């Protein structure tokens, strides 16, 4: 039965690979066939590397034959196109990098390679990860595997859809304001944004440097733990990484006491008007389930929650306006020649960037400009400190926080496209973790009208073990096997 191998979780596949019941080549062929079968509808991938993937699978089988037991040996993964892959086109969903083939690997890609993982291809993203639906990708919009007329969320919509549609066993995404968790929730998969500094940003195409983190999207919490364990750790090439040992997240799940005695904070500011009733219902059910398994829910307050969206959009756009300056047509990427040097800059950036990217560059440059800096950027940084303190105070009281990942389920393609503000508001529950630098995970917590709902679990800085264990306990209690969307 090799034709359904694509449905396996990483944990299941790893067990069968190590028992030599299946080979990495068989597994990779199965996943590649699945991609061929469904990706014309889902459109999760911007580019595929089938030959390289099969070659890597053969090498993985050789390594295993030689006694290698690397944790991800022979596991085919999808990589968001905001992550630099040596020799493999990396566009970040932008025309300005349409033909860019990087000469180096991101640290996370190096780590995956050492762990034996196989890169299938690069997944779709909103241009420069700026968006919540992949509709801002310069190339095409990915579909939600649960309803092809709906968006998969974004910006890691390609990775989330790929996991949901079983086009990869696991994936990497990047999260600046919810870009892993929101699409994972929309697509009914697990997505984790680590503590800022837990995973190296070297080789992540920068959006908001003080907010960006790379993290896993997976079919199960255990798989997410395994992936996180592989990519986490201090990197001398990224000065913002934390020099702290990486726990055995995966093994710790087996040793976990589940919900027993766990204090769960329920922030009253997250259960507000605008939260879709089915989502609120699913949240209440999740809390009740945890409580029935021994958890102690506590109502808490995160008083600066209402400032999250404006603070996030000031800081993220300010940093982005500077980060995107390097795309100037001088050294790589698109160049639209003008009559002189300045005209070449204008033409290149006018032709290379899409409207959402241009909007954010203008917003960010404005927030940093002389005379406005204090009122916008500096003020935003001060409020950010207050938001961080909200969470520090909360985590003196509780172990983890339960909250909805998104205010509603996936929306229809085109629904928010003309209203940037409405699109920005879909990040309202996820931006806080990026502003506070804390970890957050989303796990599937039911459906509404056939579309998945996500439960978000937040933890204190470096509290990945705590949120993984809580998410794992929830997954077990809900007793939900990874569902297969009807495609």
């Amino acid at each position, binding site marked *: 039965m090799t034709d359904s191998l694509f449905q396996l979780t990483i944990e299941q596949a790893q067990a069968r690979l190590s028992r030599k019941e299946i080979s990495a080549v068989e597994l990779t062929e199965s996943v590649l066939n699945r991609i061929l079968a469904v990706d014309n509808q889902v459109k999760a991938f911007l580019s595929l590397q089938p030959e390289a993937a099969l070659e890597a699978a053969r090498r993985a089988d050789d390594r295993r034959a030689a006694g290698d037991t690397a944790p991800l040996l022979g596991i085919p993964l999808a990589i968001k196109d905001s*992550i*630099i892959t040596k020799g493999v086109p*990396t566009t*970040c969903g932008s025309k300005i*990098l349409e033909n*860019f083939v*990087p*000469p*180096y690997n*991101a640290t996370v890609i190096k780590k995956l390679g050492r762990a034996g993982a196989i890169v299938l291809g690069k997944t779709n993203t909103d241009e420069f990860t700026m968006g919540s639906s992949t509709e801002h990708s310069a190339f095409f919009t990915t579909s939600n595997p649960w309803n092809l007329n709906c968006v998969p969320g974004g910006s890691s919509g390609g990775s989330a859809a790929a996991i949901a549609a079983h086009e990869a066993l696991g994936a990497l995404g990047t999260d600046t304001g919810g870009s892993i968790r929101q699409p994972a929730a929309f697509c009914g998969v697990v997505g984790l944004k680590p503590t800022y500094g837990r995973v190296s*940003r*070297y*080789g*992540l*195409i*920068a959006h*908001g*440097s*003080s907010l960006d983190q790379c993290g896993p999207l997976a079919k199960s919490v255990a798989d997410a733990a395994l992936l996180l364990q592989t990519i986490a750790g201090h990197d*001398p*090439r*990224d*000065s*913002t990484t934390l020099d702290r040992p990486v726990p055995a997240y995966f093994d710790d799940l087996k040793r976990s006491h589940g919900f027993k005695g766990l204090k769960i904070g329920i922030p009253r500011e997250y259960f507000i008007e605008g939260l879709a009733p089915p989502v609120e219902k699913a949240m209440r059910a999740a809390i009740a389930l945890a409580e029935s398994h021994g958890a102690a829910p506590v109502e808490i307050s995160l008083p600066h929650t209402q400032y999250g969206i404006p603070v996030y959009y000031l800081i993220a756009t*300010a*940093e982005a*306006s*500077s980060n*995107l*300056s*390097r*795309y*100037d047509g*001088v*050294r*790589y990427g698109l160049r639209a020649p003008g009559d002189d*040097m300045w005209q070449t*800059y204008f033409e290149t950036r006018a032709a290379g960037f899409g409207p959402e990217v241009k909007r954010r560059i203008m917003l960010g*440059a404005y927030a*940093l*400009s*002389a005379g406005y*800096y204090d009122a916008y*950027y500096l003020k935003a940084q001060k409020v950010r400190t207050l938001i961080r303190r909200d969470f520090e105070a909360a985590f003196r009281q509780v172990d983890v926080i339960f909250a909805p990942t998104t205010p509603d389920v996936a929306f229809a393609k085109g629904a928010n496209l003309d209203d940037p503000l409405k699109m920005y508001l879909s990040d309202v529950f996820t931006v806080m973790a990026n502003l506070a630098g804390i970890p957050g995970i989303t796990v599937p917590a039911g459906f509404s009208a056939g579309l998945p709902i996500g439960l978000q679990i937040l933890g204190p800085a470096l509290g990945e073990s705590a949120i993984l264990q809580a998410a794992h306990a929830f997954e077990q209690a809900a007793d939900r096997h990874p569902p297969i969307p009807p495609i």
Partner: protein
Amino acid sequence: MTTYEAIIGMEVHIELQTQSKMFCACPASFFGAAPNINTCPTCLALPGALPVINRQAVAYTALTGLALNCRIHRRNVFARKNYFYPDLPKGYQISQYELPLCTDGALDITVAGAGKTVGITRVHLEEDTGKLTHVSGGSLVDLNRAGVPLMEIVSEPDIRSAAEAYAYVSQLRQIVRYLGVSSGDMEKGAMRCEVNLSLKPVDSEVWGTKVEVKNLNSFRAVRNAITWEIARQTETLNAGGQVEQVTMGWDETRGRTVVQRSKEDAHDYRYFPEPDLPPLNLDPVRIDELADSLPELPAAKAARYRATWQLSAQDAALLTEHRDRAEYFEAAVAAGADTISARAAANWMTGEIFRRLNESGIAVADIKFPPADFARLIALVETGKINRQAGKDVLAGMWQFGAQPDAIVAAKGLKQISDSGAIEKIVTQVIAENPDPAAQFRAGKEKVIGFLVGQVMRHSRGKANPKLAEAALRRKLAS
């Protein structure tokens, strides 16, 4: 006609001679390298690449700040200075803005013998840009220099003339060379100056409009640009005109300043703290270590030479101009402590050694003999073992082969004849062979004694002690 006084502040950029670049592992030395060879994802600003702070560059900058009597700040924040130009790959320069490494320093300068203090506003660390070469049909970009550590030293507007500016820049260069943090070579671009200049009437405290002059890449350019600007602004004001607030460049070939940018085109650099680099906290213990490692600086050294060894101001300044020369000199004085005077050593050093160094162009480190041998040579002359001319010949041998002075003296048979019997014999012979000059001397023609001493030296092939020879001649001719 009003008489004006110039108010001048300087910004000096100095490239640090670290092993690697400011934020990546590429070599920092780029001179003569093929274009774009010393580059990597970080200094090419490829997507996703990140900077890592070069600790050596931080230490060099702190050391310079200490030498300039600055406060060294423990908490350092790097900032992004945003602007577009093809030699700036990231579209921003990582620099320091609100919290520089060093502030509130001072440098004492000497102009025409008079002392003066120039305040140092700040010393901060940033990265250099690449180089553009304009060719027909476009420009070529070389990023070997992009990311090389660059230290910026900003002075208070305490400078009043081209001569003071010249002295300030030369003393800065001398200090960075003493510290070994930069080559200070202006012709190679390792040191670049900008001048902020305004005029004020001598009897007023109201300063005029400030003009910035950039691209001053030689001492001559600094001096000429200031002289030019003072004249230009004075003429403008006296003609009833107004000085515009502009940024100017120095046109070396035409010998004049030219407007580069008007006030309206002023950049908004949109500075903000660099999010890719956490604040750099300097350990106070490390700052203390750096302070302890600070070498004696030229001004202090020169003062010590004058106080301890009674050297002239001119000799002290000459000897301390370069650290390696001063150290060689001091080592020689120390080695010859019981046998030679510092003054004699200073004479030999500033005369013979400096001449040979300047002629050959070699470095002090490449002198073939140790300071102790140099001291021994001086001792041989001072104690009369050989005469001065022979000493110079011995030095020539030492310079060429590195041989020891005593060995050369022995091999060449240069040892001075101080044996009175031997000298007496030669003197008798010289008087006999030169009856006319001997008679002239006896008749009172004092000058002839020089000729007779010369004859004694010739007979002894230069080895006779000339003082003893003269004494013997006088004695013999008087009898």
